[in-house]
């Protein structure tokens, strides 16, 4: 059976990587995804997805609902197993790569403890000694502008604050890669702006961001390259600038122009 292949355009022909990004070698990048399939309830939800994601740029995964964007992130994080295909984080499988790869969920689960304790938990779970944790928690609180809420119970924070806390909790472990599943989908414009600023700051520190979103404007603001998924198939891997100016697939063109894809 011949499988459709995504249109791949080399990144260097598109938008340049941010100037301040670090260029040190990453232990888990490139991420190589080969012929990845996922099935549930006898339905194939991801179909032969293949791509390579490299260090030094941010990747936005775009596509309509049900395209398989969140599934792809969850498989990359080793939270669910694919039906077939392979994921290689520079030779490591997703579970082995987890210490280097953090994830922010669309609806993050905040633990029933304070804001600071939530961040501390992520460090403790990674085995960071107690002595080092306090300083790193403070640093994460400062980055996300949550210092004044350090002692507040995490569950009573506003939606935007909760999402910033989820990002702080993921970022504090100093991951090489940050996977983000629609981090602003439930936020108002003000809170979304704050989260976008935070993501930009994290990108500039050299962390590879791989993020799903429905928001085309956000994809243009934050993305260096775009993966376009539709009905479980990867149709494009394109530098963001080119994706929005000259989409290669008719589905992507329809998606960008706001047509309903079904």
């Amino acid at each position: 059976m011949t499988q459709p292949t995504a249109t791949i355009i080399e990144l260097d022909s598109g938008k340049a990587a941010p100037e301040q990004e670090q260029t040190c070698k990453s232990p888990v990048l490139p991420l190589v995804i080969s012929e990845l399939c996922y099935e549930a309830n006898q339905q194939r939800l991801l179909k032969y997805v293949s791509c390579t994601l490299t260090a030094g740029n941010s990747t936005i995964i775009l596509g309509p609902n049900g395209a398989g964007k969140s599934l792809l992130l969850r498989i990359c994080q080793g939270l669910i197993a694919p039906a077939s295909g392979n994921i290689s984080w520079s030779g490591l499988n997703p579970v082995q790569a987890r210490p280097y790869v953090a994830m922010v969920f669309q609806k993050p689960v905040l633990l029933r403890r304070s804001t600071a304790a939530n961040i501390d938990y992520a460090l403790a779970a990674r085995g960071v000694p107690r002595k080092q944790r306090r300083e790193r928690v403070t640093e994460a609180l400062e980055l996300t502008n949550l210092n004044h809420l350090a002692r507040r119970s995490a569950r009573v924070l506003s939606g935007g604050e909760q999402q910033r806390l989820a990002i702080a909790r993921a970022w504090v472990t100093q991951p090489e890669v940050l996977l983000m599943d629609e981090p602003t989908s439930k936020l108002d414009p003000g809170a979304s702006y704050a989260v976008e600023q935070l993501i930009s700051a994290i990108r500039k520190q050299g962390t590879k961001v791989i993020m799903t979103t429905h928001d085309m404007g956000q994809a243009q603001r934050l993305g260096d390259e775009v993966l376009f998924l539709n009905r479980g198939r990867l149709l494009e891997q394109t530098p963001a600038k080119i994706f929005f100016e000259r989409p290669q697939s008719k589905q992507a063109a329809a998606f960008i122009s706001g047509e309903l894809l079904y």
Partner: protein
Amino acid sequence: MSDLSSAFGTAASLILHLDADLLEIVLLSLQISLLATLFAALIGMPLGAALALYRFPGRGFIVAMLNAFMGLPPVVVGLVVYLLLSRSGPLGPLGLLFTPTAMVIAQFMLAAPIIAALTQQTVADLNEEYDEQLRSLGAGPLRAMRTLLWDGRFSLLTAVLAGFGRVSAEVGAVLIVGGNINHVTRVMTTTIALETSKGNLALALALGLILIGLSITLTFTAQSIRDTAYRHYH
């Protein structure tokens, strides 16, 4: 009717004057039931959490048995513990029969399945929400178990209360393994049964009122702690 009102009067007087015998019985009852509940929680909670989180052969059977044991007849538990602790039983040499320790063991056996089964359910429900997040944060199985027990603490308080309610109200098991010996193993429920059969309604009634009062006070206290804490942590 006048018998009843005089019994109420005597009961009130016994309670107000902190009658020494009455106090001894109440304190021993509390000591035994609280200890049994404490041990049941220490064993039942990790057991329930492990059953919620780990998959292994026979797990379904154990969960079904735990649920069935929530309704164990206290007299049967008393009988089993009696057989274990009696002179010819496997634990006979320990000489525990007709001691408060034997009563703690019997009540532990009644409370542990309740606490374990309710914990299993609570932790399983919570894990639906937490599982991927905790794995993503790098939490191993033991840390995940501790986290779920801690984050489910408000619901688990209800499990512990259910266990305490069960043992503080039962009479069959402690009567069989304790023997209702005056000043040694006499607790509120066994005394109520004994004094009622002797026609001494006043003492029986006084103890009955205290038992109900303690139960209500404990439940209200626990509920208000839970509500306040829940509002704080959501």
